[in-house]
């Protein structure tokens, strides 16, 4: 089905959820941007979560596709979105905050992608972050429109933190049955909670096109989520709650990890190790804790995803592992002694190599592992095989005897290569080595995707380095495909440098049109 045909009523129904709490002065624009979509088979569920009255704004549109839930009490965004999901009947769901907006082709682009271009059950586009100044009368003076992140889907990153904007997202409604509702206990990062859970069940399809805007008032933001982030402890509690969420299995896209935490007995050290695992592990996991009955009786685990396993008092470490291993659900198992240093990426740095090269009968000794505090991650089947064949040997000896190679991870095998290189290029830029930064960014574009985003940044770096020909070549490629305000401005500057004022004017006028958003002015 072509994009043009999707405007017809015959396309699948899409439910657009618009939660609204205060900021009602912007709702009109937001709602208008949905009502005027090129794609018409939509239902628009506006949910007032207390705050400013908005019935007048909603009534103004007199559109039968609008379902209005008008509630006086403020129950939070999670509750509100769940209310909307419960009413939604569309095959697909998408979201819009009451101060953001879609371009006319937003819904059509995403439906077309999900229906025709991919087997993914989730798709997302790019959005402009629109920095604006709030005038005395409440109107927004646009200062800039920037695509700050245009990132191809990366599950590992998504587990660590969000990289797909909620407003840019469309997903199948039936996924909600698998991922469960929004977590109403969260008061921040609700978006990421959803995207993280979604990536247990599907890949995401990235449509490299700007289809809307989200607003950022300069200076002090009035967004609830920004205000709430300022409480660091509360923020961390939310992060940990999200990272420890395990949707109901089966998980078609994620292999579970079982962490067997081996300690002689219940003491402060093992409690500290458990707390550190909780704090520093972002990959989905469940901890198995083998302890004697006496210790289990006095155990008070204050963290989620811990399963206790009863062992004989004085059981050896390998007996503890064997007892826990019998119940491990994960496709991967980590064996870690209490007292092992748990820091950020302690597990994921080694686990990533295992995930990327499955079935090689190979394990990875964790980076901070020593002979005294030896820790390993490997496929659970390999560990079971080794223990079955060599039950009397220590875990390490049994793996060796079973021919399972255990090695350290190589630098090229650790996750977040893209992010690390990006970080290095930024450092090079900060040090004034813009030419080097440009080279690095071009290399990243070639090897790690995110092509247009990286090419733009490379062009910008070359411009700062005075390598104008290189900058020009790259920015022309970008503007030939998906121009943005920034890329048009950069090419115009290059033209102006060559004293080609007329072509520069054409580019700058186009940039100004984008900034003014004349096509976005709805009545």
């Amino acid at each position: 089905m072509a994009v043009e045909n999707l405007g017809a009523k015959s396309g699948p129904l899409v439910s657009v959820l618009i939660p609204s709490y205060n900021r009602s002065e912007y709702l009109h624009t937001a709602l208008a941007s949905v009502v005027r979509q090129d794609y018409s088979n939509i239902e628009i569920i506006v949910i007032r979560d207390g705050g400013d009255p908005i019935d007048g704004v909603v009534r103004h549109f007199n559109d039968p596709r609008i379902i209005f839930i008008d509630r006086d009490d403020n129950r939070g965004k999670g509750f509100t979105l769940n209310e909307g999901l419960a009413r939604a009947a569309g095959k697909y769901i998408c979201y819009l905050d009451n101060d953001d907006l879609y371009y006319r082709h937003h819904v059509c682009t995403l439906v077309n992608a999900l229906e025709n271009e991919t087997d993914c059950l989730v798709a997302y586009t790019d959005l402009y972050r629109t920095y604006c100044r709030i005038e005395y009368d409440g109107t927004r003076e646009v200062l800039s429109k920037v695509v700050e992140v245009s990132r191809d889907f990366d599950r590992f990153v998504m587990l660590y933190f969000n990289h797909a904007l909620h407003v840019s997202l469309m997903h199948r409604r039936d996924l909600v049955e698998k991922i469960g509702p929004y977590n109403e206990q969260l008061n921040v990062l609700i978006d990421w909670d959803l995207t993280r859970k979604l990536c247990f069940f599907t890949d995401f399809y990235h449509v490299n096109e700007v289809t809307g805007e989200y607003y950022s008032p300069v200076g002090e933001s009035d967004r609830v989520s920004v205000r709430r982030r300022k409480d660091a402890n509360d923020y961390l509690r939310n992060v940990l709650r999200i990272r420890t969420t395990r949707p109901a299995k089966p998980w078609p896209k994620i292999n579970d990890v079982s962490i067997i935490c081996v300690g002689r007995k219940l003491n402060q050290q093992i409690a500290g190790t458990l707390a550190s695992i909780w704090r520093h592990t972002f990959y989905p996991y469940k901890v198995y804790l083998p302890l004697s009955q006496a210790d289990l009786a006095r155990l008070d685990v204050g963290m989620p995803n811990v399963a206790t396993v009863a062992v004989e008092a004085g059981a050896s470490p390998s007996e503890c592992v064997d007892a826990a291993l019998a119940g491990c659900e994960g496709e991967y198992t980590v064996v870690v002694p209490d007292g092992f240093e748990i820091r950020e990426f302690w597990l994921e740095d080694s686990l990533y190599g295992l995930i990327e090269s499955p079935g090689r009968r190979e394990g990875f000794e964790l980076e901070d592992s020593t002979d005294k505090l030896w820790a390993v991650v490997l496929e659970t089947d390999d560990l079971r095989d080794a223990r079955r064949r060599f039950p009397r040997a220590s875990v390490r000896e049994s793996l060796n005897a079973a021919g399972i190679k255990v090695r350290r991870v190589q630098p090229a095998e650790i996750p977040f290569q893209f992010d690390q290189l990006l970080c290095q290029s930024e450092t090079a830029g900060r040090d004034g080595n813009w030419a080097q930064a440009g080279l690095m960014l071009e290399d990243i574009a070639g090897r790690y995707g995110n092509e247009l985003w990286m090419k733009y940044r490379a062009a910008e770096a070359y411009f700062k380095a005075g390598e104008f020909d290189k900058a020009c070549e790259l920015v022309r490629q970008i503007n030939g495909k998906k121009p943005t305000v920034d890329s048009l401005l950069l090419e115009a500057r290059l033209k102006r440098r060559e004293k080609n004022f007329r072509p520069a004017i054409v580019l700058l006028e186009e940039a100004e049109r984008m900034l003014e958003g004349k096509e976005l002015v709805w009545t």
Partner: protein
Amino acid sequence: MDMIHSNISEQENTTQRYEVLRELGDCYASVGSCEQAQRCYEKAALLGPDEADPYVGLGVVALEQGLLDDAEIAFRVACRLDSASSKAYAGLAMVAQERSDYKQSFDMYLRCLELDTDNLTALLGLFQTSCKMGSFAQVIHYLEVYLDMHPGDGSVMFSLAALYVKEGRLAEAETLLRDVLTLNPDNVDAADLLEEVEHGLAGQRQAGE
């Protein structure tokens, strides 16, 4: 919107529209579209109320149109917003020069060159006003500084040589004019002046004998 850190500062991101309008204003001004340039500069000034550049642009556009009072006001606003704006002082100098107020013009060109010895417009303006006023010591200094930075600039070399002649520094003028002619053997003005200088030097030598 909860997103992974993008490493871009807010400050860096809030000037984009201002920059588009300022660049657009400069481009329109360069092709002589004064009204459109003015529209862009005015909008840019609203978006960047603390920035001097849009007012410099407005001053230049007014100057192009012969609106000297408007130009002066715009350049003065630019100076107030950025006391180190060499372009604003150059603008004020040009306004004064248009009004034949050479003293004021000379002072403003000097202020401009104190801030930016590389400003060729100011340098040539200073040269012109110096000629009108018959005072060359300071302009010689700035021309020498400029030539240290741009050793092959024939027009400045010729201007400096002319001033050396006026100051009676014929030997220095001779060297400079020979350099000009090495760079451009077809420079008739330089050849004529060199002939004059050589004649003068010969006269001095004869007088010395």
